[in-house]
């Protein structure tokens, strides 16, 4: 019996010791342990208010850039100190949601711009009108981005960065195929014609593929490009089942039929895995991508002689509509330091910080003045300048596809049907009809 008791004693001691360690580390390293009972705002030793800023920028490249911006802000301040926390991409928002539910969220979080209205509606993000009435900063940004942050006229997040889709092409391959490297395709018809010329076969195998529209971007970008607008109009009428969409899907399918499933799938796997890219090795002559794709060319294929151009248009005069996304800085509902958070967001989206981010990261920023300043930056190489200027220019014809609050996650209803179409078990018409019906039902349910 004695032994048993001593065992329990030792065990208890061990558990207490180890948990003590855990507790000790916490209290030692931060004073951010929440106090739900006494809503104290956190203060650091110098009496500054500490605000918690969550991002998913933890890589070797991005982390120093955002931390420099934060350091600059902290230095310029004697009342606020920003504490940066890195969380993995994607999971960061699961955690944000949990912390909002528990009533102890961080003060500023970087989140997806396209679902900002949804988060506003669900009371996850704070309504920023109270701050915007004092200082209206809405005219800093591309109108397309600003509109995406609105729910019932109020903004729920401030645009931080954005992107667009452009066409990269291999100039050497153009020359080899007898095409003018300074005259990239401007219409879908030209795209097809050039791709055919750029294809290079030996026996049954492709040595080089001209172009495949669904590597790099999705079918929905091509629909957007052809229509010049999203599936939803202002009154939330759905326009999926249209003759034009049917034509576009069938057009995309012709490419798949031309190269064959085997070729398409093996290249697709290669591109998706982000390991080994046929465009870098010259095995693929053209690809639609976001401008940041340039940084990979710069790092992994520096000798590649390439050009960049806007997406070809459906037919002449139709417009080179492209698609973009981006991120906002938002204040989660329940933040205890909203005013201080707003001060920081203003700094984060102002010209200085945005220009620095744009140039160092080679990223499209939401602030128009900063974007234009960055495109003139002398820090870029010739190629870099060329791509960045094209990216900034392209913002004018770039549309975002904000998720309507009445149709959350609508794409998960459309995608399976379109997959069925590409697999050959549905016609384009059937896939679009079904998608139209499914999305309309979703909207009915939510209205």
């Amino acid at each position, binding site marked *: *019996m004695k032994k*048993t008791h001593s*065992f329990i004693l030792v*065990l208890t001691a*061990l*558990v207490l010791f*180890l*948990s003590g*360690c*855990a*507790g000790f*580390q*916490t209290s030692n*390293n*931060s004073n*951010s*342990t*929440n*106090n*739900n009972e006494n809503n104290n705002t956190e203060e650091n030793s110098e009496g500054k208010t500490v605000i*918690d800023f969550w991002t*998913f*920028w*933890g*890589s*070797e*490249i*991005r*982390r120093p850039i955002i931390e420099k911006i934060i350091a600059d802000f902290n230095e310029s301040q004697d009342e606020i100190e920003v504490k940066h*926390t*890195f*969380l*993995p*991409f994607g*999971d960061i928002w*699961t*955690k944000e*949601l*949990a*912390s909002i*539910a*528990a*009533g*102890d969220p961080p003060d500023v979080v970087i989140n997806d711009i396209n679902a900002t209205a949804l988060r506003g509606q669900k009371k996850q993000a704070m309504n920023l009108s109270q701050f915007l009435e004092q200082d209206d900063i809405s005219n800093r940004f591309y109108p397309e981005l600003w509109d995406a942050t609105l729910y019932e006229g109020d903004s729920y997040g401030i645009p931080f960065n954005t992107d667009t889709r452009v066409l990269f092409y291999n100039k050497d391959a153009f020359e080899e195929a007898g095409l003018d490297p300074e005259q990239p395709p401007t219409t879908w018809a030209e795209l097809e014609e050039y791709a055919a010329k750029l294809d290079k076969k030996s026996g049954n195998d492709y040595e080089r593929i001209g172009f495949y529209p669904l590597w790099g971007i999705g079918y929905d970008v091509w629909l957007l490009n052809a229509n010049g607008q999203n599936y939803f109009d202002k009154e939330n009428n759905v326009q999926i089942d249209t003759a034009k969409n049917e034509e576009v899907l069938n057009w995309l399918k012709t490419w798949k039929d031309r190269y064959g499933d085997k070729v398409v799938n093996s290249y697709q796997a*290669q591109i998706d895995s*982000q*390991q*080994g*890219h*046929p465009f*870098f*090795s010259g*095995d693929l002559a053209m690809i639609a991508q*976001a401008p*940041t794709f340039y*940084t*990979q060319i710069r*790092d*992994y*294929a520096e000798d590649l002689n390439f050009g960049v151009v806007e997406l070809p248009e459906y037919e002449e005069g139709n417009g080179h509509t492209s698609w973009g996304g981006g991120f906002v800085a938002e204040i989660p509902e329940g933040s205890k330091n909203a005013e201080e958070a707003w001060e920081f967001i203003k700094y984060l989206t102002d010209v200085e910080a945005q220009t620095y981010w744009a140039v160092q990261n080679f990223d499209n920023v939401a602030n128009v003045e900063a974007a234009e300043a960055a495109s003139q930056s002398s820090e870029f190489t010739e190629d870099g300048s060329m791509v960045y200027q094209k990216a900034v220019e392209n913002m004018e014809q770039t549309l975002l596809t904000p998720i309507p609050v009445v149709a959350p996650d609508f794409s998960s209803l459309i995608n399976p049907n379109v997959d069925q179409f590409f697999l050959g078990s549905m016609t384009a018409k059937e896939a679009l009809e079904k998608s139209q019906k499914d999305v309309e039902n979703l909207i009915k349910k939510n209205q």
Partner: protein
Amino acid sequence: MDKTPEDNDYLDRTSDLKSIGKTNENPSFLEHRGNRKNFLTILNFFLLAIGGLLIISPLWWMVSTSLKTMAEVMSFPPSFWPENWLFSNYIRTWEAAPFTRYTINTLTITTLVVIGNVLSNSFIAYGFAKIPFKGKNILFAIVLATMMIPGFVTLIPQYVLFAKLNWINTYYPLFVPAFFGSAFNIFLLRQFYMTIPTELIEAAKIEGANHFYIWWKIGLPLTKPAIATVAIFSFNGAWNDFLGPLLYLNDENLYTLQIGLQVFKGQLSTQWNYLMAGSLIVLLPVILLFFFFQKYFIQGINLQSGGK
């Protein structure tokens, strides 16, 4: 890979591993068998070797990627052997984030979880298996029913609960639950306890021992294999846990290895070479564990499938 096919049926044998070792050391063992048997042995060996190579190839891909430059990782077609063996990738990986600290953190949590799981589940299972009391079956059914609730459903309520306890940004939410048992482990150990004759318990009782003493002195030693299984599986679970630490820890100094690895994965691109180097380092203890406790791993799987 130095196993003979005869080793394969050791799973079915109840005898311990020693006897197998003996058979292999005995050279006369194959002599009295025909050539045909010999041929089959070689064929078996050959097929197993090919199977082994196939299974190990993803692991080799990890090793190979971890030694390449990013430019080589991105080259097309991919190369199987790295051009230059860049062992410095491992150093750069380790320095890319405070991995030493993350290792200590992960070890702390894992140790506590293993201790908690072994003690609590074994204790609870003993009660369910050997102590008769009213409503035992209903209670046991309720315990098992908790297995039906998917973790994602309880995610937010659990988070809110721990937040109310002021446990966010501490390790408590990560290891304290381990001290309160988990349905699967309780079930596993209970099945094992059922095989211990009740007479043994009764004899101990007559000698004047209480249940606690019997559990500690007789129950624990007799259920060693099952406990090893529980320990190994909870080690694996805690070591590889990603969502738990992610949700409950805010301070980067408290982060674990699994979160640390995520720094190599960006929104647009992934630093595969560092990610693979880091993953291999993190995987190492699990592989070592497997080599040393292979027997228990397989027993554990048998217990699991047998139990179901």
